[in-house]
């Protein structure tokens, strides 16, 4: 995917224009999806909590699309963007969000556990760092099967302080597993600020402790993320093992719907909003206001249609409650 056709301009020297335009649309779609989700939540149309990634869309846009078909994704609970970028169908995703039978997980998983095993999307994660040990298994599996696949393992700054982080990165390292550890450092583990939870400058510094490559990139820059992930994937496929990428970004909304955000100032949020990844990427693509408005309109229409689709989809039958536990 990284190599475009000759006549096409490579945006930032990294992404073909047509693909980049699609990514911009999906970034807008992600944000629209999440803003709509928040609204539906406020209107009482969905139940349960959700974790939105508004402000962090560049990482999803840069990461998944840097990989190849057949690669694996281990997502996080804040993973709507990654799910869409991995090729998720908006309608079926919305159905899952509304807990419908035709959703990706038959309404059993919801926003926090959404997965599409068929496309090797091994699901979003409800346990902080829960997917890190799993990445070892997926990596081992690839290694034993000798398939040249890679695993994109997403996690946040909070997960980097779980014990599982240590076990997993160490095991991936000693066995040279094809795992890309992509840490979305959005500055807060719920209310715990990065500065209060770490005494190091960057989380990627920890890579050296495991003998793997580590780097930190601007997480609001689609191109930077794309390049880092693509290069890490190339190394993994060549048998050079794992990489720890830290992408610096910021979460505009609270951790979840119940977050009153007492741990940070409005000014801080406003300051980060000036670095918003979506206008930034639109500018890179030379898309004017009119063009951008069209993209937004399309996203809104698509979301509305998806909501209609999902709302008109069947609820799971109660008689099927015990299904899907055992094979």
């Amino acid at each position, binding site marked *: 995917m990284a190599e475009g056709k000759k006549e096409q301009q490579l945006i930032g020297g990294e992404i073909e224009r047509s693909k980049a335009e699609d990514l911009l649309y999906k970034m807008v779609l992600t944000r629209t999806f999440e803003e709509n989700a928040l609204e539906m939540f406020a209107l009482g149309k969905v139940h349960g909590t959700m974790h939105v990634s508004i402000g962090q869309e560049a990482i999803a846009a840069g990461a998944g699309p840097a990989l190849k078909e057949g690669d*694996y994704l*281990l997502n996080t609970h804040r993973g709507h963007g990654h799910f869409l970028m991995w090729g998720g169908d908006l309608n079926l995703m919305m159905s899952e969000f509304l807990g419908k039978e035709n*959703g*990706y*997980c*038959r*309404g*059993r*998983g919801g926003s926090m*556990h959404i*997965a599409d*095993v*068929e496309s*090797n999307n*091994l*699901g979003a994660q*409800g*346990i902080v760092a*829960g*997917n*890190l*040990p*799993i*990445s*070892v*298994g*997926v*990596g*081992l*599996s*690839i*290694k*034993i*099967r000798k398939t040249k696949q890679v695993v994109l393992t997403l996690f946040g700054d909070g997960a980097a302080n779980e*014990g*599982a982080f240590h*076990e*997993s990165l*160490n*095991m991936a390292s*000693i*066995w040279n597993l094809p795992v890309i550890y992509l840490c979305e450092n959005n500055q807060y583990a719920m209310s715990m600020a990065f500065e209060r939870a770490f005494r190091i400058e960057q989380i990627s510094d920890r890579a050296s402790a495991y003998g793997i490559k580590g780097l930190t990139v601007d997480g609001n820059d689609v191109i930077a993320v794309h390049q880092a992930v693509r290069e890490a994937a190339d190394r993994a496929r060549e048998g050079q093992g794992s990489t720890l990428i830290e992408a610096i970004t910021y979460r505009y909304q609270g951790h979840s719907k119940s977050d009153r955000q007492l741990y940070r100032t409005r000014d801080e949020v406003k300051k980060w909003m000036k670095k918003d990844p979506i206008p930034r990427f639109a500018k890179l693509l030379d898309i004017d206001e009119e063009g951008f408005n069209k993209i937004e309109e399309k996203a809104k229409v698509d979301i509305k249609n998806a909501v209609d689709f999902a709302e008109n989809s069947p609820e799971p039958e109660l008689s099927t409650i015990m*299904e*899907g*536990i*055992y*094979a």
Partner: protein
Amino acid sequence: MREISYMEALREGLRQSMEKDDRVFLIGEDIGIYGGAFGVSAGLLDQFGPERIIDTPISEAGIAGACVGASVTGMRPVGEMQFSDFVVLAMEQIVMQGAKMRFMFGGKAELPFVIRLAGGSGTGAAAQHSESLENWFVHVPGLKVVMPSSPYDAKGLLLSAIEENNPVMFFEHKLLYKMKGDVPEEMYTIPIGKSKIVREGKDLTVIATSIMVPRSLEAAKILSKEGIELEVIDPRTLKPLDEEPIIKSVIKTGKALVVHEAVKTGGFGGEISAMIMESEAFDFLDAPVRRLAGLDVPIPYNRNLEYHAVPQVENIVEEARKIVQNIY
């Protein structure tokens, strides 16, 4: 038939599974050159190499996670918890991930992995290396829990567990590793979820697990001389439980005793007991269902204290006799 030990039966099962199916690999601490803490995997490294006999750092969550990740991507890993107690360090991966993933994903993922756990007391290993934690997993939808009590069952159930398309917690007992018994050389499977009446009797149904099965058989032999005939049932699979033979037996005898090594409170005995109460057998009960289980105590180091912390043959004899004689 050829007689081999419980440990050898397990090893043979592992070997035959790996020979038959390339997707099967072993992962755990010291299972390679060391041969496993109790020697179960001894010699397998030579045959299958380090790619399939994977020694890990001391990383139980990593082992369990590796099983989850590898199984969901098409492998059939067999993980080992060196001592079953260490599974506490892997609980999140087993309970939160392995057990639930298929369900959370709408039934669209398969997780064919086995976690082998060496459990039980009697070796002087004290509180952190002697526990019997099987019932924790019985409580988790998505897992299957197996507990073989003989060499024959050990091999047959292990082969089934590896062929199973669900996570299986496979509880072995350290004191049973040396137990000898008839084991066929060829591959054979014992279905998961199938109990076994190991001894027929008319006076009392004893439902025993793991090492309590041979102990109950020993007790039955003693009581038989007094004219008391125990019917001993080994569920073999704790989850899913094969209820029917237990219910039928209790209908026949009117009395039931559950014997297990794990502590009584919150133990599997409560589950069996409640199942009997809920079943048709209730109307045929002619005495309270009793549980003989480990004391609610961490396993003590002292040999004598350790001995008395869990049911022994004489305890089973005494308890069974009391039930049959309507003392309770």
